[in-house]
């Protein structure tokens, strides 16, 4: 066993980073069990950090000062931004909806019928799971997307969504209503009614399966919804089979 003063000297050399690996490992292990050496290390470490700061480059070029080329940052950030974008492809495709999905409580309309108490409780329980599903579907690279002015219809594994941004609040006593056209059908069937959030964002999941549908539409209707459209649709999207 070495005298303790010698160990304290080694702690200083360790803090400075000039010990060979085997001796550094020895000191490191010793620090775990020796309070006075650990105290010494804690005391000296800021002095070593200060040494580093003594050579910090200057922000402005003055005579003889070390400055950093702005090209370095440009190169680095170009690579970092490219990697960040590649990791989050959904952001580029869906900036407004991804933000809405992350920041807003999604109003997912599930139907027009009045819900019983037990149905409401059940809905509460499944709401968060549905929101997670919605976010995943909106962001999925495998989703089929049908753009229209003001939004997109998104379909993933048969689940169907209408996502809109910049949607104005409907006139008083009015709501937006979605319509679906079943394959082979002559008339559209009523689907969910909805109003956009205060930010003009609306993400609506339709209860119908996309595989049975030929088209989706949206129109403005009286509160409570209609059985057939009473106004010209603001969106009409034909789904590919």
């Amino acid at each position, binding site marked *: 066993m070495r005298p303790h003063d010698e160990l304290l000297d080694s702690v200083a050399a360790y803090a400075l*980073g000039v010990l060979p690996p085997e001796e550094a490992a020895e000191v490191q292990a010793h620090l775990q069990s020796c309070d006075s050496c650990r105290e010494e290390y804690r005391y000296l470490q800021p002095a070593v950090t200060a040494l580093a700061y003594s050579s910090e480059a200057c922000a402005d070029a003055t005579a003889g000062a070390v400055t950093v080329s702005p090209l370095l940052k440009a190169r*680095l950030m170009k690579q970092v931004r490219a990697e960040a974008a590649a990791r989050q492809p959904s952001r580029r495709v869906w900036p407004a909806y991804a933000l809405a999905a992350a920041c807003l409580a999604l109003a997912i309309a599930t139907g027009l019928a009045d819900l019983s108490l037990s149905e409401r409780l059940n809905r509460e329980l499944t709401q968060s799971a549905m929101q997670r599903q919605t976010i995943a579907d909106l962001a999925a690279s495998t989703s089929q997307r049908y753009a229209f002015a003001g939004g997109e219809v998104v379909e993933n594994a048969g689940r169907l969504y209408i996502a809109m941004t910049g949607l104005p609040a409907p006139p008083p006593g009015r709501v937006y209503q979605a319509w679906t056209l079943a394959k082979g059908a002559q008339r559209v069937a009523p689907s969910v009614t909805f109003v956009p959030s205060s930010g003009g964002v609306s993400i609506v999941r339709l209860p119908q399966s996309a595989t049975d549908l030929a088209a989706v539409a949206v129109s403005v209707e009286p509160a409570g919804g209609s059985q057939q459209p009473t106004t010209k649709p603001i969106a009409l999207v034909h789904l590919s089979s």
Partner: protein
Amino acid sequence: MERVRARDAEAFETLYDRYHRLVYGVAMRVLADVSAAEDVTQTVFLKIWSSPALFRDGNFGAWIARVARNRAVDLVRTRTLHGESEIPHSIPAEDALEETALARISGERVREALAQLPVEQREPIELGFFGGVTQEQIARSTGLPLGTVKTRIRTGLRRLRHALEGQVTV
């Protein structure tokens, strides 16, 4: 750092703006070569971007300064000692946890404090930290016993630490 861990490029840019002069300054002091110092700076920051978990906790400035210094010293050793590397590449996590915070550290103040040290203490400290020179090499070059070199390093660091009292928060 939480936002950098979440791959937030804006947060990373803020981190770069705050610490790149420290990293570059250390690398430049060790390597005395603009191109090599830029390479080290880029390597260190890209490493943080790709592996943010390497930094666990503690004083980030102290940690990144050590990483930059070790990286630059590794390069010096690769050039001069055929790849021999005697210094651990990154500061152990438990060291970072025990790091004392430096408040309002001023490079100018540190340089003044360093200048106040007796040359026989300042030289081994600067050689060791910026020169990438091991304690044995310092002993050989000065002709002093190894124990004397270590004692001078410790005495010098304690004096430096004492001189910086006002800038250190415990």
